C-alpha cells in the first residue's frame, strides 16, 4: 500500500495523451506521431517504477485462506449503491503482463509511423485508448471495473482493424467484435450471478450487506467458507467466464475470428492483438476461473486441456500449410496459446507459473515475428512465402535476428520459449488432473512448431536468391533498435528466468491457495 497512485498514473497516462491529441491543431501528422510515441514511451518508463514495489518479497500470507496479495492497491468507491469500486492492484501475475503491454505499445506506435498514413491523429488516439483499456483489464480487482475495461478494449481494436485494415477489413472487424462481444455477455451474466449469490449468502448472516463486486472480498469469503460456490450453478458460472476467455485467447474451436482479424489488421494493430489482447483471455482464466471456481476448474480441467492440446496440434498443422506469412504466424499463435491454456489447467503452481511466463514470452516473440513480417511486406509488397528466397544474402542482419526470434518461438534451450514450455510441460506431467498423455501431445506440438517455423525461415531466407529480393535493403538503425529491444528480454529471460519467476510464483501462489484445497479434497 502506498499513497502515491503510481498504478493509476500508468493506467491513465495513455488516455491523457489521447485527450491531448484531440486538442492539437489540424493536419500535423508528424506531430501526432511524435506525441503518440512520446506518451507510450513515457508510460513504459513510469511502469518500470512498478518493479520497485516488487523488490521486497511479500510477507507470508496470513493464512491459507487469504486472498491473493495485491500490491499498490488503490480503492475508491465508484458506484457505492452496488458495491462497485475503482479498485486496482497488482500481483505477480499481472505485473509482467502490464510491463509487456507498456513495452509493446510504443513499438506498435513506432511501427505505425510508416504503415499508417491516413487519419493519423485518430489512429494514435485509438492506440492510446487501447493501451489504457488493456492495462485496465490487467490491474482491475473489481469485477465490474474489469468488465468495463474488458469490453472497452473491443471498441478501439475493432475500429483500428476496420479503418486501417486490409481489403476485407470490415467483415474481419465485425466478426472480431461480435464473437468476443457475444462471449463476453455470458461472462457478464456470470459476474451478475457471482455478485447476487455472494450478496444473498453474506446478507443472510450480515443484514444490511449491499453486495460487492470486489474480487478480493469475494475470494476471501470463498476461502474462509462464508460463501460457497459449488454444484452445477457454479459450473455454469464457470462456463460463462470460460466462454469469454476461450474466445479471446482463443482456445480451439473458438478461434475462427482469429485468422481474418490477424491477417486484415495492419502491423501495429496485429502486434497488440496477438501479443497482448490474446493474453487477456488466459490472464482472465488465471485471475477469475481459477480463483473463483477452484472446484469447477478441477472438474473442467481435463476437458479444457484436451481442447488446448487439439489447439496446439491443429494450429501447428494449419500453420504448416500456410503460404501467407502473416497467417502462418497467426496460426502459430493459436498453437502457442494452447500451451498456455494447458499450463493453466494443469492446476498446479508449476503449470500456472509456466503459463504466465509463457504469456510474456509469447507476447515478445509473436510481436517480433509480426514486426518482421510487416517489415518484409513493406519491402517486397507481398507476404507470400513464394515471393521470397535467399534473403540472407540481401539482409543478413534481419536474417540473424529473425533466426533468433524463430528459435525462441520454437523453444530452443537458452532462449525464453524453452523456459516457459518446459515449465508448462513439467506442470502438466505432475498435474493432479492431467498426466503424461497430455505431455506427449505437447511435445509433439513443440516438434511441429520447429518444423513450420524453420520451414518459413528456410524458404524466406535460405535457398537461391530471387532476382526481386536481391535488392531489398537491410534494417535501418531504427528498425534494428526496435528488434534488438524485443530480442534482449528474450535472451535475458532465457538465461535468467528467475528474474520473472520469483514474482510470478508469488502471484501464482496467491491464486493457487484455493485450488490446492479444492483439488486436495477431491
Amino acid at each position, binding site marked *: 500500500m502506498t499513497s502515491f497512485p503510481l498504478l493509476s498514473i500508468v493506467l491513465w497516462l495513455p488516455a491523457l495523451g489521447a485527450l491531448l491529441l484531440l486538442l492539437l491543431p489540424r493536419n500535423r501528422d508528424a506531430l501526432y506521431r511524435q506525441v503518440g510515441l512520446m506518451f507510450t514511451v513515457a508510460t513504459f518508463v513510469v511502469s518500470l517504477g512498478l518493479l520497485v514495489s516488487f523488490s521486497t518479497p511479500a510477507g507470508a500470507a496470513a493464512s491459507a485462506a487469504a486472498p491473493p496479495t495485491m500490491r499498490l492497491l488503490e480503492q475508491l468507491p*465508484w*458506484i*457505492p*449503491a*452496488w458495491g462497485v469500486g475503482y479498485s486496482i492492484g497488482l500481483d505477480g501475475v499481472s505485473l509482467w503482463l502490464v510491463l509487456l503491454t507498456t513495452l509493446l505499445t510504443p513499438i506498435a506506435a513506432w511501427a505505425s509511423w510508416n504503415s499508417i498514413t491516413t487519419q493519423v491523429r485518430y489512429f494514435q488516439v485509438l492506440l492510446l485508448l487501447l493501451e489504457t483499456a488493456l492495462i485496465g483489464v490487467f490491474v482491475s480487482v473489481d469485477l465490474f471495473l474489469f*468488465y*468495463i475495461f474488458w*469490453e*472497452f478494449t*473491443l*471498441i478501439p481494436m*475493432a*475500429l483500428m482493424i*476496420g*479503418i486501417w485494415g486490409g481489403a476485407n*477489413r*470490415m467483415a474481419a*472487424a*465485425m466478426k472480431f*467484435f*461480435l464473437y468476443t*462481444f*457475444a462471449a463476453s*455477455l*455470458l461472462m*457478464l*451474466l456470470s459476474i*451478475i*450471478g457471482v*455478485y*447476487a449469490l455472494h*450478496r*444473498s449468502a453474506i446478507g443472510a448472516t450480515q443484514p444490511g450487506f449491499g453486495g460487492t463486486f470486489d474480487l478480493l472480498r469475494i475470494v476471501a469469503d470463498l476461502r474462509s467458507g462464508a460463501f460457497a460456490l459449488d454444484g452445477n450453478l457454479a459450473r455454469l458460472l464457470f462456463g460463462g467466464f470460460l466462454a469469454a476467455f476461450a474466445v479471446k485467447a482463443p482456445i480451439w474451436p473458438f478461434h475462427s475470428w482469429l485468422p481474418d482479424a490477424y491477417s486484415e489488421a495492419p502491423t501495429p494493430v496485429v502486434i497488440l492483438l496477438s501479443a497482448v489482447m490474446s493474453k487477456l483471455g488466459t490472464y482472465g482464466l488465471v485471475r477469475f476461473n481459477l480463483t473463483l471456481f477452484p472446484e469447477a476448474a478441477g472438474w473442467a480441467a481435463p476437458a479444457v486441456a484436451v481442447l488446448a492440446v487439439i489447439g496446439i496440434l491443429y494450429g501447428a498443422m494449419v500453420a504448416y500449410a500456410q503460404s501467407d506469412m502473416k497467417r502462418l504466424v497467426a496460426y502459430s499463435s493459436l498453437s502457442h496459446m494452447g500451451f498456455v491454456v494447458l499450463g493453466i489447467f494443469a492446476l498446479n503452481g508449476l503449470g500456472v507459473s509456466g503459463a504466465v511466463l509463457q504469456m510474456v514470452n509469447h507476447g515478445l516473440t509473436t510481436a517480433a515475428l509480426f514486426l518482421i513480417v510487416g517489415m518484409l511486406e513493406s519491402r517486397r509488397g507481398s507476404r507470400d512465402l513464394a515471393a521470397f528466397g535467399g534473403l540472407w544474402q540481401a539482409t543478413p542482419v534481419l536474417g540473424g535476428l529473425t533466426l533468433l526470434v524463430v528459435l525462441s518461438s520454437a523453444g530452443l534451450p537458452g532462449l525464453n520459449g524453452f523456459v516457459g514450455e518446459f515449465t508448462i510441460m513439467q506442470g502438466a506431467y505432475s498435474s493432479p488432473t492431467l498426466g503424461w498423455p497430455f505431455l506427449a501431445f505437447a511435445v509433439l506440438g513443440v516438434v511441429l512448431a520447429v518444423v513450420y517455423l524453420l520451414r518459413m525461415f528456410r524458404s524466406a531466407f535460405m535457398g537461391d536468391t530471387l532476382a526481386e529480393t536481391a535488392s531489398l535493403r537491410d534494417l535501418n538503425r531504427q528498425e534494428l533498435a526496435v528488434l534488438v529491444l524485443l530480442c534482449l528480454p528474450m535472451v535475458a529471460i532465457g538465461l535468467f528466468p528467475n528474474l520473472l519467476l520469483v514474482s510470478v510464483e508469488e502471484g501464482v501462489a496467491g491464486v493457487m491457495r484455493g485450488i490446492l484445497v479444492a483439488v486436495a479434497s477431491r
Partner: protein
Amino acid sequence: MEQIQIPPVDLAVVAPLITVVGWAIVLLLVDVFFVPAGQKRITGYLGIAGLVMAGAVAAPLWGSDSSTFGGMLVLDNFALALTWIFLLIGAISMVIALDYLPRQGIEQGEFYPLIMFAVSAMMLLGQSANLIVMFLGIELLSITLYILTGFAYPRLSSEEAAMKYLLLGAFAAGFFVYGIALIYGQTGTVQLFSTAPGQESLAEYLGRQTFAAVDLTLLLVGSGLVLVAFGFKVALVPFHMWTPDVYEGAPTPVTAFMSVGTKGAALAALLRLLDMALPSLQPIWLPVLATLAAVTMLLGNLGAIAQSNVKRMLAYSSIGHAGYLLLGVMTVSERGVQGFLFYLLAYSLTNLGAFAVLIALEQRGEAAWSLDDFAGLWQRQPFLALAMAVFMLSLAGVPPTAGFVGKFYVFMAAWEGGLGWLALVGMLTSAIAAFFYLRVIARMFMQEPVRDVQPQLFRGLTLGISIAAAGTLIFGILPTLLINVVQQTALAVGR
C-alpha cells in the same frame, strides 16, 4: 337548492401536471394570435420553456408521498422521477423538431402544444392509481399521438401510419375498457391500492382473499385483457405488428418521441398495476409476462437484423428494448423498479439521439435512411458519426455508455428475482442486437461514401444530439449520479 361542494384537492400533487396542461392551452392561444406564420419555432421555444418550468415546479415536491382526488392520483418519488424523464423526452423531441418542421414544410404551431399534451398524459399515467384514470391517460396520449403521427399529412406514409395506429389503438382501448369492467365486476373497485385507511382497492381486495376459497376468474380475465391493451401500447410481441409501419411513417421527431415516451408511460402504469395492485397474483402473471418478454426480445431483435432501412431497424430494435424494460417491471422488487427507471432514461436519451441523427440525414422529400447512406459519414460529418456511434453502442449495451449500465441493472434485477434464464435470453438477444447496431458503425467509419448524401445540421438539432450523447456517456461513466436518485424511488412494492 342544494349547495355543490367542491372537493378538497391537494394542488401540490397535480402541480406539474397543471403546469404542463395550462401552459399548453395558453400556448395554443398565443400561437394563434401572436406568433406569425413561418416563425412557429417561437412557439417551440415557449413550449420548451413550459416543460422546463414544470420540471422546476416538480423539484420541491421530491420526497413527498401524497395523493389526492380520493387517492386516484398519487405523487411519490417514482412518479416524480418519471415526470422528469417525460419532461426531458418532450423537451428533446421539441428541440429536434424545431428545424425539422419547416424543412419538411409541415410547420404548424399546434405541434408543440400537442407534444405538451402528450407529455401531460404520460405524467398522468405515471401518477395514476386508478384504472379509469389510467385509461383516460392512455386515451389522451393515444389521440395526441394519432394526430402527431399524421402530422405530415399530405405525405401518404404518414397518413397511412396514423390510420393504422388509430385502428389498432382503438382495438386496444376496447380491450382495456372491457378488462376494467370485468375487474370491477369481481372486485367492485377500480382503485389500484389504498391511499387512505378503509379505502377499498384491488390490493385490499386481494389481501382479504385466501386463494383456494375464491374464484378469481373475472379478475384474471379482466387483468389479461388489460395486459393485452398494454401489450399493444408498448408493442410487445405478438402485439407489435403496427410498430414498424407506424414508426417509419410518422414524422421522425414524433417517432423518436413515441418510441420512448409511450413505452415508458405505459410500462410505468403497468408497473404500478402489477407491483402495487396485483403482487399477490405474481405466480400467475409472471410466467405469462416472462414469456412475453422473452419472445419480445427475441423477435424484436431478429426482425431488426433483416432491415436495411435504419429508421425501420430502430423501430424493430425499440420492440426489443420494450422486452428489456419489461424485465424491470415484472420482478416485483425495488431493484427492478430502479432498473426500470434507469433503463428508461438511458434508452430515452439514446434513442432520441439516434432519431435526431436520422433527422439530420433527412432532406426535403427524400429520406436518406438506408444503410448505404451511412457509409463514410465519418469523413463528411465526424460529429454526427461519433454521436451515432455512441448511440449505437449504448443501444447495444457496450460500456462505457448508459445503455450498458441500464442493461446491467435490469439483468441484475432479473437474476435476483429468480429469472436467471430470462437474463440469459436477454444476453443472447443483446448479442444478436450488437450485430445490426455494429453494422451501422462499420458503415460509418470503415467504408467510403456510396451515395452523395448531404447531412444538414442545425443549431437545434446539434443541441439535441449533444445533450443526448453527453447524457449517454456521463450516465455510463458516472452512473452513481443517477443511481442515487432512482434509489430513492422505492415503491411500496410487493405489499
